[in-house]
Structures are given as C-alpha cells and as structure tokens.
C-alpha cells in the first residue's frame, strides 16, 4: 500500500506546480498557447489570443524564459531526523510509512507562490522527516498515541492545496516531524437516505466524494475551487467555502458530526441532532483549527439529491459599480442563484484571452455581432464593462423562473444577458487559472491570489483601494513593468460579500522577486484590514497571516484559542504552529 499510495500521487501530479502532470499550458512552436491533456474542456485546445494578452499585459516575451528545474534533486532534501523508537513501534502496528525524499518533499509545502517558486528553483527547505498513511480512524488513534508517547511532531496532510503556508514545517522544530497523510482514508462509510446524510472518511478528495455520491443519486454541493485536489478533512480544518454555498451552505453548515483524534483522546458529539443548545458548539473549535488540535478522521455531512437541471448564465454590466449594486440587490432579495460571481474589467479581458479558437466563420461572425451590439449599440465602454457569471440549479421550472427574476434585477442596473457560454467559460476558468500561474512562471511572471470578506457598503472601496495599493507597492518596490491587479466578487451574503484578488507581475530585473512579491502581498493585506475587510474568508490563517490574528480576534480571543490548544495538546504534538 505504501507503493500505491505514493505512486498514485507522483505519477499523475506535478511535484513543483499545480495539478495533473499531463495538464499544462504552453506556447507551442508557432507561438500559440495551448492547454495539454484530456482532462478539461479546454484540454487540447489552441488559445490564439492568449499570447498577445500575455505579452501586452505583462510586457513579457516568449524569448525570455525562466524554466523550472525539471526533476527533484533528492540530494537537496535534508536527511530525515528519525525517532527510532517511534519508527519501531509504528512498524509493529503495521501502518505504512516512508522516508523517501520524494514523498517527504511532496508533503512539505502547499501552493503559496513562494513555496512553488522555491521548488521550481530546486530549493527544498525543512520537510517532514517521515510520511505515514493511516487507513482508518483506529490507525490514526494509534499513531497519535505513539506520537505523544515518543514526543514526535505530527502534521496532518490532506490534499496539499493550502495557500496559507500551513503545511510548511516550522524551521525551529527540532523533533522528528511526521506528515500524517489521510489519503488512504477515502471511503464513504454509509449513506442515510432518511436523514439525507453521509458518513465519510476525512481523507476523501472533493471530486471523488461528489462522483461516488452521484452514483447513488446524491451530492454534497460543496464545490470549492480546489475540489479536484482538496480533502474533506482539509475543508473542515480551514472552514472552507464552496462555490454553490447559496444553496448548500459553507462547510460549517454542511457538517452534522465530526470525529477528531486529539492527544487528549477522541472528540465527538453523542448524537446527530440537527442543532443543539449545549454551550458553545464544539464543532467550532474544530472547524478552522488548521491541524493544530488533532486529525479529523470521519465526518457526517448533509447530502442532497443531484439537481434535475443546471443552467449557466452571464450578465454584462457597463461598469463594476453597477455590477456590485446588482449583486447587492440580489442578496437583499435573497434570490442569489447557486453561484453568482462578478469579474472586474481586467478579468473580463483575461477571460477573453482564453477563448479557444472558434470552429466556424459563423461563430466568429456571431461574436463580432455581440461585441458590436454591446459596445456600439448599447454604448458600453470596453475598458470599463464587467461581467457576472451565474449558475442556476434545481428543477427546471423553478430554475427558469429564478433566472428571469435575476435577469430582471440585473436589467435595473444596466445589465445585459450575455449568454450561457460566457457563464460556463467563467466557471471553467476557475479550475484552470491555477495552471496558468505555472505558465506565467515559465516566462518571468509571478502571480498570486488572496481573498477577504467585507460588508456590502465597503465592497467597492476595498476593491478599488487594494487594487491601487498593489499597483503602487509594485512601483515602489522597483517592479519594472506594470502589474496585473484585478478582483472579483465571488460570494454574496446578507451582510456582505467575499472578494477575491489576483495580482501578477513581470519580475525581470528584480534580484529577489519573491521578497518583493511578499512585501506587496503584505501591504495588500494591510490595506484590506484598514478598509474593513477580514483576514480571510476561506483560505485560513496558517502561518502566512497569523501576525494579524491578535488585531483580528482581540487579545482575549487569542487567549481563548490558546487555552483550548493548551488543554487539548499540551505537548504541542500537532506542532505545525498555524493560527496562533
């Protein structure tokens, strides 16, 4: 099982970039961009407009390449610090483990820019000394008991898609660090159709969970953008949010029961009642604990029948302000579709650059006509307009009714329906955008995204100021080319929205691009907080953002969390040092 466990990952996934090894963007010999592989709708397609957009936006050139180190140099990985007694006992309980350099390096990072950048340069910092693959809840209990007994540091590992430096091994840790990989705990244990719940092992990856449930006619509806690779346990421990939360809710709304193994023993509730008034909800100590308290092993989740009908849609607005006003109104009337997202003008342009080659003259004629209608006939300024993408779900009749309601509201804010294709492409981009970062990094362009949540009255202010701050900081820090600084509103709530920012710049001419990038990101976060945004909506705090925890949750708040940690894990076995 050791073999199959790590062979599976290494064979299909990149060790120094995002996603599947067979899927990547590249510029072919003709200088055209294409997306390789067969996994996505975009796979195998030529994207004729991407090169011009890429060169135009970043001042990059296909002549200037910054390729990654192709293979992991195992000698660059530090020799493991092993706790022999722990290893011996582990062998005796029969849990598979490994201390191969590849396995360890693979689990020593998430997907922050600085982590990937270092890997591409072949630099490997402190990585776990060993990886264990428990097969079930009982295995985890045994491993945690052993870790406590031998004072070994445990870092739970799910899908490895963290973007908060949560998986980085604390350099100051002197004990042996063991990465506890939950990937083998990936079964649906039971489905309860009377209560519409499913009991699932926490190591299951999002797309597998949905696929398996679909086979029985159900779904969870929890679809974070990383769902191809992220795990259920990871969602619980970071307070994840899914694209379709308007119908299904965020992770905290979806879980009915959680089982977690801590150094003090197992924590769980005694029943599966839908709501309890039994003091502070213990689930909320677990949700968002980021692997500092224990390992989530099993979760009971709500499930829903697979929706009968799905429909994409899109609306073009003359400007971002109108778009936000429309989303606000939709939220006010509580009629948000399964998903509604508003991209700003920069992203709209970006989306256009990713249009595949059109198959016929007729489609290209139609596209031209649409463009003419919007810009000339309706007078939208192409450098200001923005687009909202929509996803409706439910029974057919209701979807159509709902769709009409939303388009009517949009019309009040100057919005024009812009077709299903644009909507669908918008959502597809969500899954391929992470691949695009790797393409950029091949040509001196580094990029990162970050998110926040903010009250409605501040959405525009946060968007404007953070984007402008990124531009200013890049300039001040000596970035030679103007950066891409863009945002979108990805979720709506009664009292506010979730905003996602993207920034990217060409780093040619900078001696330490990662440091510059980190300063810019830091400044951007300061700007978010100064403008009334939150520290994080769903990525979590990890180590990347923990310097702001005190100001975010107050001195007492930090003390409360600390005292829970002190009780549950006095020896700091779960020593990834996230959050606090």
């Amino acid at each position: 099982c050791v073999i199959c466990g790590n062979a599976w990952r290494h064979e299909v996934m990149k060790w120094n970039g995002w996603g599947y090894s067979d899927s990547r963007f590249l510029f072919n010999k003709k200088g055209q961009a294409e997306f390789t592989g067969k996994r996505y709708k975009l796979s195998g397609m030529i994207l004729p407009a991407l090169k011009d957009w890429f060169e135009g936006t970043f001042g990059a050139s296909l002549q200037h390449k910054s390729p990654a180190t192709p293979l992991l140099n195992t000698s660059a990985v530090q020799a493991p610090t092993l706790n022999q007694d722990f290893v011996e006992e582990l062998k005796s309980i029969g849990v598979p483990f490994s201390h191969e350099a590849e396995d360890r390096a693979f689990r020593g990072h998430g997907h922050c820019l600085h982590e990937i950048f270092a890997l591409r340069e072949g630099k490997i910092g402190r990585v776990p000394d060993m990886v264990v693959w428990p097969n079930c809840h009982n295995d985890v209990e045994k491993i945690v008991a052993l870790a406590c007994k031998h004072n070994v540091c445990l870092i739970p590992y799910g899908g490895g898609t963290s973007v908060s430096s949560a998986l980085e091994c604390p350099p100051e840790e002197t004990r042996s660090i063991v990465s506890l990989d939950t990937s083998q705990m990936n079964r649906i244990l039971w489905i309860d159709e009377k209560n519409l719940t499913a009991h699932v092992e926490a190591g299951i990856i999002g797309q597998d969970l949905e696929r398996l449930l679909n086979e029985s006619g159900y779904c969870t509806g929890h679809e974070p953008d990383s769902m191809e690779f992220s795990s259920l346990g990871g969602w619980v421990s970071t307070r994840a949010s899914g694209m379709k939360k308007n119908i299904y809710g965020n992770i905290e709304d979806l879980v009915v029961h959680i089982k977690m193994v801590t150094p003090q023993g197992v924590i769980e509730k005694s029943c599966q009642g839908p709501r309890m008034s039994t003091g502070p909800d213990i689930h909320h100590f677990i949700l968002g604990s980021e692997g500092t308290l224990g390992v989530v092993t099993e979760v009971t989740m709500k499930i829903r029948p697979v929706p009968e009908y799905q429909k994409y849609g899109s609306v073009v607005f003359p400007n971002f302000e109108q778009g936000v006003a429309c989303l606000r109104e939709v939220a006010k009337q509580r009629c948000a579709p399964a998903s509604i997202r508003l991209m700003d003008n920069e992203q709209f342009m970006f989306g256009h650059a990713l249009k595949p080659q059109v198959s016929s003259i007729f489609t290209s004629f139609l596209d031209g006509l649409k463009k003419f209608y919007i810009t000339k006939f309706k007078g939208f300024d192409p450098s200001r307009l923005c687009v909202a993408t929509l996803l409706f779900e439910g029974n057919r009749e209701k979807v159509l009714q709902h769709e009409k309601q939303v388009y009517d509201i949009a019309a009040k804010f100057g919005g024009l329906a812009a077709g299903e294709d644009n909507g669908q492409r918008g959502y597809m981009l969500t899954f391929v955008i992470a691949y695009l970062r790797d393409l950029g990094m091949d040509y001196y362009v580094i990029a990162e995204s970050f998110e926040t949540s903010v009250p409605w009255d501040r959405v525009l202010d946060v968007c404007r100021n953070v984007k402008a701050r990124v531009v200013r900081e890049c300039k001040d820090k000596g970035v030679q080319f103007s950066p891409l600084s863009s945002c979108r509103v990805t979720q709506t709530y009664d009292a506010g929205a979730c905003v996602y920012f993207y920034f990217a710049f060409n780093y040619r001419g900078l001696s330490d691009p990662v440091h510059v990038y980190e300063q810019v990101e830091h400044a951007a976060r300061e700007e978010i907080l100064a403008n009334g945004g939150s520290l994080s909506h769903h990525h979590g705090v990890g180590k990347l953002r923990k310097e702001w925890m005190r100001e975010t949750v107050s001195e007492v708040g930090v003390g409360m969390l600390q005292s829970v940690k002190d009780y549950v894990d006095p020896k700091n076995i779960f020593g990834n040092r996230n959050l606090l």
Partner: protein
Amino acid sequence: MLKKRDDFEDILEERRNSSDLRYALKCYTPVLYKQLTPCTASDLKNMVLCSTQVHFVIAQVSKETGAAPEEVQAEASSILEEMAHRLQLGPIRFFAFVLCKVFKTLFRSVCVNEEGIQRLQQSIHEHPVVLLPSHRSYMDFLLMSYILYTYDLALPVIAAGMDFMGMKILGEMLRMSGAFFIRRSFGGDKLYWAVFSEYVRTMLKTGFAPVEFFLEGTRSRTSKSLTPKLGLLNIVMEPFLKGEVFDVALVPVSISYERILEESLYARELLGVPKPKESTSGLFKARKVLSENYGSIHVYFGQPVSVRSLAEGRVQRGQFNLIPRHIPRRPSEDVQGFVNDSAYQLLRAQEENMVLKPWVLLSSLLLRGGGMMMEELSEGAVWLRELCRQYGAFLHWPETRFNFKQSPDALTLNTGAQKGAGLTAEEELLSQAVIILSCASYRNQALHVFVRPALLATALQAAGSAHKQDVFNTFNFLRNMFANEFILCPGAAVQDFEEACFLLMKTGVVLMEQEEVLVTENGHRTITFLTSILDPFLQGYQVVCRFLCEASTESLTEAQFVPAVRTFIVRLLLSGLSFKHFSCFQTHSHCVCVCVCVCVCCRATKIL
C-alpha cells in the same frame, strides 16, 4: 539647505502679444480624474441630498426638534441651494477676458512654475486634488482659476466666505465660476455641517473638480501666514481615512505679491478702521487701484502631498470599521492630531516657496529703526541676501547689480502715504503708523526664513547661560509663547531647535562645544539682526502685558479688548515713546485671536 526649485514662466507675456478674446474663447479640454463619475453641478446637489449621511442627520434633527422630516429635508435643500456653485464655462471665459485686461494693467508679470503645473496635471489625473493657496488678497482665487484656465487644467471649486454672496451680480458670477459659499460660523448647526461637509466630500470623491480652500481661513493682513483652520482640511481628509478614495493629493500653492492690492487697507484695518463690507459698488469704487502699479506676482505650485503617505503609521484607519461610516462622529484624538500636524506641514510648504523680493529684505533692515545711509543700506542688503540664501529662502533678485532706482514701486508707494499736513497729533501718528505697518508687512514675508534662528538668537541672549539645555529651555519658552504668532509645528520643538542650531552653525554664527552654545566673533552681526526681527513681537507682547497690569481694571469682552489695547498704545506713543514702538500696533493686532493673546499674556505674566 539649498533647495532645487523650478523656473518661472510669465503668463502675461503671451497675453500682451496676442488677442485676449481669442484666448477667452480658446478650446478648453482639461485633463480629468481617471475615475471621474461624470456629473453636472445639479447632479451633485442630488447626490448630496440623497446621501446616507445627510439622510441620517435629517432623521436625527427631525427627531430632536419634532419637525417633520419633509421640513428638515426642505431646509437641507435650501442650505445647499445657498451654498452650491454652478460651475459653467461661459462665465469663466468672461472672467478670463476681463482678468486679462485687469492683470495687464495692474501687474508687470504673473510668473508661474510650469513644472508645478505639470505635476498638478498628473495629480489631477491620478487622484482627487485639493488646492491650498496662501491667502493674502481677494485676488488669490481669481488668480488661481485664471492660471488653471490658462494652462488647460480642471477648474477648481472654491470655498468662499458668505460675504461675497452679498455682492449683487458678482456673487452670482463667482458662483458660476466655481465658488461655493459657506457661512463663517455655524457652530452647533448639525444640518448645516452635514450638508456642507457632504457637499465638499462628494465633489472630491467623484473627482468633479479640484477643491480649493484657504488653510489660513482668512486673508492674512500682515503678510505672515496665519495658524491653520482645520475644519475643511478635516473634511477633505475624511474620504481617504474612511477608505472611500485611494488617496487625496494636497497641493500647497504659494502666491507672492510684490505689492498687495489691499495693502493700505490692511494697515488701516490693523489700526482699527473697520473692513469695508464686500459689495459690488464698493468694488466699482475701488477701481482706482487700476491706475497703480503692483509689480509682479509669483505663483509656485508646490509638490503634491499624498494624504496616504502623511497618514502612514499615524492614523489607524481600522478605527472606522465598526460603526457605519455615514454616522457623523467627532474625529478621534489621533485623527485630530494628525490633521493639525498636516496643516502645519502644509503651511510650511507654502511658506518655503514664497518668493522674496529685494524690498522685503530692505524693509527688514529699515525697520530696525534709526536713520540709514544709502550705502549702508545697500551693503546691508547684499549681506542679508547672502544670509537668506544660506537659510534656504527663495529669492527673486534682479540680475543686474542691485540699484534702488530700479525698484521704485515699493518705495514710491510708501512715500505716497506720507503726504497730508495739518492733522491732529493723533492723526499724524496714525498716518505714520500706516507707513510702518506697510513696511512691516513686507518684512513679515521673510519671517518664516528667520523665525527659528531668531528664536535661538533671542534665547541665547535671554538664557543667561550658554549651556545647551538652558538655551533650549528658553528657546522652548519663546516658541510656546509665539506658537500662535508664527507657523511652528506643534510638538516639534526639538526639531526646530536643531534646525536653528544647524543653520547658525552652518553660517558660522555659533559653535557647539561640549553642551555649550557659543556665539563666535563674526556671529554678532547676525545675532543682532536676528534678535531685531523678533524684537517688535516681544515688545508688542510686553505692551499688552503692561496694559493688562496697568490699565485694565475691569474685565473686558473680546470685542472691547482690541480697541482698548489700541487706545492704550496710542496714549503711550503720544506721551513720547520712541519711534520703535510703532510696531506695537502691528504686534497687538497680530494676536488675531484675542483669547489666545490673553492666554499667552497670562502665561507670560505668571512666569515673569
């Protein structure tokens, strides 16, 4: 200390060589704010009346007074009606035409630093802009708009005092050229404040036009910067502090007149002749000024100051996160301190770029009293010019060897007032005082250059010890006493002291030896000059103290205080005090704010 400053360009030169009419009708396409929400002047009014801020206060006022919300709404609407500008291009063109004619008659040249204009244009494109000109004359805002029109820049909206609105026709014309009128005092009127502040903020946030106002609040009658008024500065900084705009650019503008139009008017005002009420007919009568020569004007557009960088590390912007931003709140202590410090910083930036003409230095020398030979004066001027240069002053000195015959305007103007025989002793005295005061107002233009070294020089003489700490203590005492007299940033005593020490050391006036500050052999001339600069102010304060001790038995109201002091001084002078004491007139009037003066005096008497 030598600052790099831009070169000037005379904008009247072109006007003298080409058609004014064509100029007034020229194609005008200014660069606008990049995030401009296009709207008209009346759209602005609607935005203000529909804003959550104004709505909130309307509801509040209606609840407190029991008036129907519609009534309060109507009142808000009429306040706005009274206040709002109606910026239009037509009247601007008319003004452009008339002002061309007027300026060409009055002034030899109007010089502008074009690089400053370019910087301003850049700023207008990038951020909402606030223009902060110095205020010495009614001419200031007309001049500003004229210059911006000439350079094809966005025309500003200008906060003007209500007094102008009283002027028939002209008031309306000013309104159409961008002036909006605010009441001088509206202390507790919540509704007025809400409408007014929202109006200014809306213009700023939408990028409708650069907002222009005078930090000093009113025209300085003495050519020396007045301590700042903070109300409007608070308002224009708020959109940044509350995150409603990314940044606001504050542009200090220094307008230096060779001779101020209201010159003799100011002197008389200082002596107790009340300021004439602004009226169109008054203006018409004043047309006689057209026959005189007022020399040249230098307008320096300073480096735009970003509110964001000013606030960096000073203000916790997160303080607005927990209460809806439209609910009016008194600014927190750190915001108040921040706005106050910024105001002083901006005023200093204004002062630094004031252009000093030769006559300013001559007045400084002449006012030291006693007679003076022409050669002596000439030699002194050259010496003083060098000193000014080393202190970083912005001098405008004729290129040829300085010759008095070449700058007759200033001298003639002063002889002008000397005529008139057969007056009573008191009238005689007053007319003499007018001359002295006019002269002093020239000297005052250079005060900002000398004030810190002068405080140190006086402290050196008064301290009675050369020990650095003692000197600093005396310096600090004087500095506090004159806090309302000169532009001295609050809380910057140490910096000011060090700056003064640096300047005096650089010019070889003092030496620092083991915690001792020693005056050098060659330094005495400078020390004498510097103390003479501060002398009139010290004397003035002394006289006021004397008045408080001797003459004032019963308590006086604020309004009675100034005239009472004035009569007291006249009595003193008539009873044979020396010529030098004329300047007391100016000083006592300098204490513009009577309360402050009293308070200073109380402090002074307590210590003395």
